[in-house]
């Protein structure tokens, strides 16, 4: 795994950025923004080709009151179902790219490549910004 770069969009006050991305992922997103337009990432819960970040044209998935904005990668938002937050609470979410075309409905991260989320477990309470956001109605 590449060393993640700091997410420019994350709150600078956070001791550890909740969302980070590898240079390969940032390049793939930049290319998607160029070719597809604005995109958004959704962290999937599971099954089959799930448990991965899925990338869609921004607006393809209608946001609901239970969608939480985890952070962003160079302006591309990353969403997570509120119910997954408890599970992800102590993980730093690191966007990366792996070989192989996406197996579900997600946009590819370049030719024969798909997005993946790496994780780095950090101490509980390291992400005060998101926990506040989660507590908001």
């Amino acid at each position, binding site marked *: 795994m590449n060393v993640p770069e700091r997410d420019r969009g994350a709150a600078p006050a956070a001791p550890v950025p909740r969302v980070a991305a590898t240079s390969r992922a940032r390049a793939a997103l930049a290319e998607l923004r160029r070719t597809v337009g604005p995109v958004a990432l959704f962290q999937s*819960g*599971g099954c089959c080709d*799930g448990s991965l970040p899925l990338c869609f044209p921004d607006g393809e998935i209608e946001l609901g009151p239970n969608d939480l904005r985890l952070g962003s990668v160079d302006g591309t938002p990353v969403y997570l179902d509120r119910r997954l937050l408890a599970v992800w609470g102590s993980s730093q979410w690191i966007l990366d790219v*792996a070989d*192989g075309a996406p197996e579900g*409905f997600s946009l590819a991260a370049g030719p024969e490549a*798909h997005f*993946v989320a790496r*994780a780095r477990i950090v101490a509980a309470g390291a992400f005060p910004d998101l926990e506040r956001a989660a507590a908001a109605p």
Partner: protein
Amino acid sequence: MLDRVETMASAARPTVTEVPSPNESPGRKVYIPPGLPGSLVSVKPRYENYLGGRWVAPAQGGYMVDLTPVTGRPICEVPRSTAEDIERALDAAHAAKTAWGETSLAARARVLNRIADAIEQNLEMLAVTETWENGKPVRETLGADIPLSADHFRYFAGATRSLEGSSTEIDRETVAYHFHEPLGVVGQIIPFNFPLLMAAWKIAPALAAGNCTVVKPASPTPWSILKLLEVIGDLVPPGVLNVVTGPGGEIGKALASNPRIAKIAFTGETVTGRLIMQYAAQNIIPSTVELGGKSPNLFFEDVLAHDDEFLEKAVEGLVLYAFNKGEVCTCPSRALVQESIYEPFMARCLAHIRHIREGNPLDTTTQMGPQVSRQQLDKVSSYVEIGRQEGAQVLVGGRRAEMPGDLAGGYYYEPTVLKGDNKMRVFQEEIFGPVLAVTTFKDEAEAIEIANDTLYGLGAGVWTRDGARAYRVGRAIKAGRVWTNCYHLYPAGAAFGGYKISGVGRENHRMMLEHYSEVKNLLVSYSPKPLGLFSE
């Protein structure tokens, strides 16, 4: 059949994969890989979509390579279809829907029974095909996937003939008749883990209820259903059953969001399931979605009360997490073992798990094959890494399985057990691989609490010699299917579907016929008298 399969004695052909397991057994067979001389399965370099009873090249002329996870090498090419191909398939389905919808029940049932007969007559061929494309052991496809697929068509052939409408005498001169009418044309999206069986689960009830269907197989497993169509295509009137292969993001969306379908059925990943329901809402059509799971498998202390057949069955029940290399929505991926028996019970289970024979899935003695794709293998590895970071203890496995010869390029992972806490991510997120997360509980109340501490509610297992406890716990677990003193049985006639975020709807039961029908109510007055509201 013996002349058409490779036995161990003649497995020296260089193109036949080496078999790492030294265990010999008398009934052992190692099937020749599809496409090689002597194989049961012929392979064309390139396949087409199946539309309107014909093989049709994709409109844009694009193809994609289909790989076998056994070696990581190409099998064939299949269409990389586009939205235009979905429209063509829908044209064919709509052209066929009126005649099929008006076909007598006897004639519809005959078609389904002939499909079942054809599947059985080609059982070995289809089993080897499915194994080669998906990686699941041929002992599973021979014993479960393909026979269950055939039986599913038979079940719905019978069920559709027994489905009755109703009439209600509202009053002496007013009668409400209820008829089931076909929806028309439906869209069905199939997952990669049981490419043929899940296709049967969807196609059989749709056709039985008088609908025509457009089916999109999963991107990693588009080929086996095309082989199935080679066998059953001629048995179905043109346009009733259509198959289009290609990437989900393009043709899956083109199908699911299409205003020309009357229902969408989907099995797969949760965010995609939500997207499917969103498309259905936009078109105001029904959807059924069968999504993820993190199914708990509960072992109460009385399983260890006797050293008998039942204990062996319970141990096997835990080891079943490795069934289909864990690529099952209902994989019993969380084992909850009563604290008082944890050490001796897990010792027995781990001894079994260490002896799981992993390798060439075309060998009938192999118990676990490769993950379906490199993508899935990577995901499994990364979750085990997360588990390690979280402090889970690796009791067995925890790494890729190195394979010799041709198998070295395949996607093999060792059957793995992680011991930890239910709050860990590896207990909460679906890994979809041969990774078991195990923890303990003190008593029945805690067992139920841990079992239900999950976003999912698809499957569960309860193991106990106490019938009353089995009933109490089974009813208390929030899941659509609770296997009681068994696991991973999928007989037609047992409703299957999820609570919570595991989905909406049920499959595998006669009630599906209603999910694939509209209700027509004729409200008939036999009275000559006016209502009188507008009379002088």
